[in-house]
C-alpha cells in the first residue's frame, strides 16, 4: 500500500526527516513513535499526500479518495454543526447513502445528541470524536492517524480502540503515537524516529 525509499524533508535549511525507508503492505498496521520534533507529523503528511518529500520517493497505492487523514487539527468548521460538517465531506467524497452513514458514525462516537450543535461549542474531546467520524466517513483504504488518542477521554479512547480493532486487517493503518502500548496489540510494524 505504501512504499518509501530514502525519504527526506527539508524546510529551507532545517532538515526534519532523513532517509526513511518503509514498506506498509495492504492490511498492515504501522506504528510510528519518536520524541517531539522527530518528524512524525511530517512523515504522516507526506504519506497522506498533503506534503511532498524533498528527497527520496514514495509510492502510494491509494487515491486521494481512499485516504483518511487525522492530523493535529480536526479539519472541521467551528461555525457549522457536526451534521453539516459531515454532510459537506460526505458530498465531496460522494458517499452513497450519506445520511445513514453520517448518522451511524455520530451514533457510534456518542455525538448523535449534539449533532445539531455548532462544533465551536464542543469540548476538545468531542471535536476529536467528530474528527474521527470525518476520517472514517468515506471508509478509506489507508488510514493515516496522527496522535488519534489526543484529547480523548477513556470512553472515547475505548471507542477508538474498538474501531481500530474492527478495521484491523481490512484497512491499512499508519498511526503515530506517544503511547505505543495502547496500539501495540494491533501493530504489525513499528518505526521509531529519532531527532
Amino acid at each position, binding site marked *: 500500500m505504501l512504499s518509501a525509499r530514502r525519504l527526506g524533508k527539508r524546510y529551507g535549511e532545517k532538515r526534519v526527516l532523513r532517509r526513511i525507508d518503509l514498506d506498509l503492505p495492504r492490511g498492515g498496521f504501522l506504528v510510528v513513535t519518536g520524541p517531539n520534533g522527530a518528524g512524525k507529523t511530517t512523515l504522516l503528511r507526506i504519506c*497522506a*499526500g*498533503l*506534503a*511532498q518529500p524533498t528527497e527520496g520517493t514514495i509510492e502510494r497505492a491509494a*487515491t*486521494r*479518495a481512499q*485516504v483518511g*487523514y487525522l*492530523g493535529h*487539527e480536526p*479539519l*472541521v*468548521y*467551528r*461555525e*457549522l454543526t457536526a451534521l*453539516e460538517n459531515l454532510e*459537506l*465531506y460526505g*458530498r*465531496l*467524497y*460522494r458517499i452513497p447513502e450519506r445520511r445513514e452513514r453520517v448518522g451511524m458514525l455520530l451514533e457510534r462516537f456518542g455525538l448523535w445528541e449534539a449533532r445539531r450543535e*455548532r462544533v465551536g461549542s464542543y469540548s476538545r474531546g468531542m471535536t476529536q470524536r467528530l474528527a474521527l467520524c*470525518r476520517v472514517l466517513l468515506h471508509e478509506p483504504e489507508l488510514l493515516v492517524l496522527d496522535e488519534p488518542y489526543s484529547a480523548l477521554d477513556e470512553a472515547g479512547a475505548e471507542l477508538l480502540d474498538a474501531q481500530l480493532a474492527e478495521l484491523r486487517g481490512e484497512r491499512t493503518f499508519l498511526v503515530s503515537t506517544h503511547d505505543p502500548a495502547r496500539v501495540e496489540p494491533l501493530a504489525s510494524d513499528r518505526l521509531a524516529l529519532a531527532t
Partner: protein
Amino acid sequence: MSYVRDVGALARKDLLLELRARDTLPAMLLFVAAVFVIFHFALPGTPSRLETTGFLWVAILFTALLGLGRAFVPEREQRTFDGLVLAPCDRSAIWLAKSLATLTFLVAAEVVALPLYALFFHPIHGAMVAAVLLADVGICGVGTFLGAMAVVTRARDLLLPLLFLPLAMPIVVGAVGASVSASPGRYLGFLALYDLLFALVCWATFEYVVAE
C-alpha cells in the same frame, strides 16, 4: 455534473459560515456606505459624472478587497484547508465556490452602493450596471485566486492588495470606460474577455496554488 455539485456544496458551506459568523458582509456594507458618505461631504460643489464614476470604482474595488481578504480566513484560522485539499473533488471547485460566495457578498454590497451613488451624485444607467456585474466576476475570480496564494504567507494582509491591485487595473479601465462612454459596448466586451481569460487561468492553475 459532480463538479457542479462539489462547487454547490462548497459555496453553500461558505455562505453558511458567513450567515453564522457575520464578519464579512456587514463590514463590506458599512465600508461602502461610509465611503460614499465621506465622498459626498468631502467633494466641493457638484462633481462631474466623470469624477464620481472614478470614486464609485475606487469604492467598489476597496470594498471587494475587504471581502477578498476574509475569503480564506475560516480555512486559515481553523486549518481546514487540508480537509478540502484531501477531498477527491477537483481542487478548482474550491476556487470557484469561494469566488461565487465572495461575488454574492460583493453584489449585496453593491445593492447598497449603487442607490447611494445615485442619491448623492448621478443617476445610474444600464451600461454601468452591466459593467459592475462584469467587473465583479473578474474581481472575485482573480482576487480569490490571489487570496488563496496570500493566505499561506505571513504577510498575507500586505500581499493581497499588492498582487491584486495591479491585476485589477484593466478592470478599472474597462469599467470606468463602460460607465462614461457613449458607446460602452467595446468596454463591456473588454471586461468579458478579461473575465474569460483570467477565469480560465485561475481554474487551470488553482491546483498548484493549494498543493505544497
